[in-house]
């Protein structure tokens, strides 16, 4: 009698442990999908509290200014050979 109860108890403990493991695994997967990064809100936007230094802005502006070339409008763009003359 004692042996049967003991076996049933072990069986229940095993089931509970498995259930806990499944729940933990599901939670991990769920957080992996929806988790947020530091400084980022749930909808993916950068939080307004993030601090950006003037150096960051200068770097961004430098990048913008260097993305275009004044030679796009050089004299050679309108020489006789380009016009087919």
């Amino acid at each position, binding site marked *: 009698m004692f042996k049967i109860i003991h076996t049933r108890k072990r069986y229940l403990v095993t089931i509970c442990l498995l259930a806990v493991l499944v729940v933990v695994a599901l939670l991990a997967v769920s957080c992996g999908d929806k988790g947020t990064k530091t400084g980022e809100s749930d909808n993916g936007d950068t*939080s307004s509290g*993030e601090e*950006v230094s*003037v150096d960051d802005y200068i770097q961004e502006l430098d990048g*913008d200014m260097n993305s*275009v070339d004044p030679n796009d409008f050089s004299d050679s763009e*309108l020489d006789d050979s380009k016009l087919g003359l």
Partner: protein
Amino acid sequence: MRRTTLTVILVMVIMVTTTVVAAGAFQQSPADEVKERREEIQEERADTVQKRIELIITRFNNNKDRHIETYKRVSSTLKEIADALEAEGYDLTKVRGDYRELDLKIKKAATDYAAFIKKLEEAAEIEPGDGRFAATIQEARSLLRVFREDILDIRHFYQTVIRKDLEDLKEQTPSGSSSNSPATPPIAVAPAVS
């Protein structure tokens, strides 16, 4: 019999002569052929030049859009910096003046560009053989140089004035701050997403 033969021969001679004369009348002289060929070549050339000018205009328009959009983006970023840092107690008078001046330079560049393209479109309507063509193209080239100067002026203004005024902000102590040590002022706003 002899009269009939003579008549037949006469008729044949008349027919041959008429054919030769008619053929001669419709046949072009070598000079005419050269003239016609020259006209064809000129038409083909005019067509080629017109197509090339149209292609050049399209390319210029695309490049102009990229340039103007970039300089406008720089201006709006400056405004963003000014708004954010002013709230922190910094003096942004120079930066505000900078983006206003930049806006004026952008406007001037856009106006000069419109004049240049108008001249180029005018040239596309004139045949290359026409004396006015060379003069119009020359004017378009001068206007292109003016627009390029505008672009170089904007870039020079950014490098020598805007950048310096931004660097100077790092030396400022905001009016509301108790700290006396100059530091890179942080701005509590998100950077513009390009």
